């Protein structure tokens, strides 16, 4: 029996241009970021699901992060999620720094050069010490709240954590091959998180600190980026479905009789919004079920 995702993927119509751009990005490697934008219900998440499926077919490592009112990932949440999706074993230094900043039982050791933060010698963790980690994976204690002191600006925690994360991510991508990272519903990101994504992650790609990593950024609008980031980015603005795509969709949903007359009616009622079309077809199906 096909899964709900498989059914949705099979019903996918149009968006071939966007998909070929995405595949081209993976093949050539000349561009590393794709901005997908479009209004509510225009099928951004469906397109993303198809891209993720493409990555699975190509056997690429991937990470998927979706924002919602309740899952509002901050910069630390994003880094932890990418680490967990890619493989915690590649992010030991980052995890150690995270624990230093968030776990009240761990004392921070500030080294002269924070880009190589000195691991807290003597720290007891999983029956071992960080000083002799060799092969043991450092466990993230997954605290969200920083230590009890007041007023240490988030930006001060952010930089050493980001530096450690980018170093580990860059090394992981060199070791395991291309990685794809998908951000969905980014319009729900907070101002601070959005600034971090553009200013740290995308900047690292643009400057070459991160290689072999592809980002797909999906939201209502394209973020404001400088021309340097723009030069390595693909853009895809999703528009309304066309009549012929609607006919194809109706047929895939089991309305074999559907033709351009049906499509024209739907276009007038929904202005080609894919979600509204799909919801209307749900209603049609319900009506038909009632009758039978």
């Amino acid at each position, binding site marked *: 029996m096909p899964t*709900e*995702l498989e*059914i949705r993927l099979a019903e996918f119509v149009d968006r071939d241009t966007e998909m070929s751009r995405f595949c081209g990005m993976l093949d050539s490697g000349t561009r590393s970021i794709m901005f997908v934008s479009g209004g*509510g*219900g225009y099928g951004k*998440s469906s397109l993303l699901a198809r891209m993720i499926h493409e990555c699975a077919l190509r056997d690429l490592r991937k990470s998927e992060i979706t924002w*919602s*009112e*309740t899952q*509002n990932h*901050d910069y630390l*949440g994003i880094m932890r999620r990418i680490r967990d999706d890619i493989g915690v074993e590649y992010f030991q230094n980052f995890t150690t720094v995270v624990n*230093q*900043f*968030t776990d009240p039982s761990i004392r*921070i*050791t*500030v080294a*002269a*050069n*924070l*880009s190589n933060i000195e691991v807290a010698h003597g720290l007891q963790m999983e029956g071992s010490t960080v000083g002799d980690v060799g092969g043991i994976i450092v466990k993230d204690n*997954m*605290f*969200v*709240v*920083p*230590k*009890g*002191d*007041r*007023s*240490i*600006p*988030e930006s*001060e*925690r952010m*930089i*050493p954590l980001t*530096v450690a994360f980018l170093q580990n991510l860059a090394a992981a991508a060199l070791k395991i091959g291309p990685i794809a990272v998908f951000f969905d519903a980014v319009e*729900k990101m*907070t*101002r*601070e998180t959005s600034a971090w994504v553009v200013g740290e992650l995308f900047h690292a790609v643009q400057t070459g600190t991160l290689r072999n990593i592809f980002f797909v950024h999906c939201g209502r609008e394209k973020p404001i980026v400088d021309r340097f980031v723009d030069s390595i980015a693909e853009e895809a603005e999703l528009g309304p479905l066309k009549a012929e795509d609607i006919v194809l969709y109706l047929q895939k949903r089991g309305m074999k*009789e559907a033709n351009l007359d*049906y499509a024209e*009616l739907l276009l007038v*009622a929904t202005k080609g*919004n894919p*979600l*509204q079309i799909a*919801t*209307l*077809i*749900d*209603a*049609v199906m*319900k*009506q038909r079920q*009632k009758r039978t």
Partner: protein
Amino acid sequence: MSSFADFQRLIAQTTGADATVELLLLQMEPAAAKHFRLCAIPHQFDLSVFKLLMPEVEPVQAERRYQEFSCLSPVVNLTDALTLHDQARRFLFDQWLKENSSEFKMVSERLVKHFEKSGAVQNSYDYAYARRQRMFHMVGHDQSTGIEEFEKIFRDERIKGRLGECEALLALIREYDFILTQAHTSIVLYHEARLWFERRDWSHAEKLFRAVVAIDSLPQSYRIKSWNRIGLLFAKQRCWKDAILNLERAVRLAKESNDVQMLPFALHDLGTAYRDSGELDRSRRLLQESIHLAEKMQNTSCIAAAYNSLGTLERRGGDIRRGIEHYKTSLEYLRPLHDHLRTAQVYNNLGAAYADLGEWETSKEMYKKSLDLKTEAGDTIGLARTLSNLIPVYQHLFRLPDAIAAAEKATSIFETLRDPFSAAVATRNLAKIRRGTGTTAEIRANYLRAIELFRDAKDYDQAEATNKELYSYSRPVGMPGWYWTAIVFLLLVVVGFVAWHLLTAE
């Protein structure tokens, strides 16, 4: 009847974006439609939350319905839960708010209890999620308690500097805009203004605070806080006249309404504004009044802050010993609060005061205490600042290797934390210290790096000044040409004079 005619008739019923959901509900059996509408109350629902929404439904039937809903187009499948698509949820949630029915309140209450029971470990992601969800549904169940809970969480996040979390909380509470009382709306707006204050966007924060004070039903304590904040945002911009005007308004209102909680803080903030604008006597009176009132209220935190401010005031007035006494009193009050960050700041001030007196050994001890506490608190930028302060102390104690080590460490931290201006100053200081002991290559490298950092910080004047310093250092030691010409000329004059003297003597 043809299927196209049916289709046409059905489509004719849709007008507007939300009509498609309405139409879908019309085609569902009434019980299913009611259950679908209930799904819009939580942000997302797994099977356990789904069952909670409709306790009267048999578990097996609920599971079947959950499965059925998961295949509908306006339903988004998450990894372990379902959620309605944004537009559909917004439309149905607004309908609940407009009805404001007892059913909505009852469902909200059940959700409050559900998230209350969450056994998540404190400080974990699950705990933060459950706490926010509990707050959200509390607003639906009991608005006043919900708003109180919102304020508590918002304050916690703000104090920890997690401004993104504050923004996310505001987005959650805004979903209730339609039913919030005017007083609650004004409180939410006050917190939004505070967020922009923390983001240091002074003009936007001021605009929002002014909108807050314009609301008639704003509770008086928030009116006082808002005027106080308007004053503080002017103080942050060093606009003392406007700062004092608004801070005085806050003090006047606090006195009129006998707000003994807020008054000591308002007096303190006004006192520091007068101090920084140069009116030391008036500042001293206000800070003492603040201490007096805070003592009555046993507000230890305010007393500690006021003594620290008094210490700085006395230092500025030249009475450094008195300043030191006040700093020490501040430390006494901070001790039971276990506030490492502020304690470290007071020790830093003590270090500076002893340096003013030329008591270098004591100054070094105070700075060291500050360093230890800042390391403990993870205050890395504070650490770098104290290390910078330690440099002249080590120089006066003739401990040049320690001065160089402190400067190198401070430079490295400033650079890592991307504060190019502070890094540039520290690197230039490092070059100056090394002029006594270092190699030419080291000194030149430090100067060049400082110039580069000043340029990164876009301070081109300082970059130029540093360049001149480097030039004066690099130029080979020697006397200028005109100097040699003058010496030769003088020698000729002397020789001529002696020769003439000898000749005339014969």
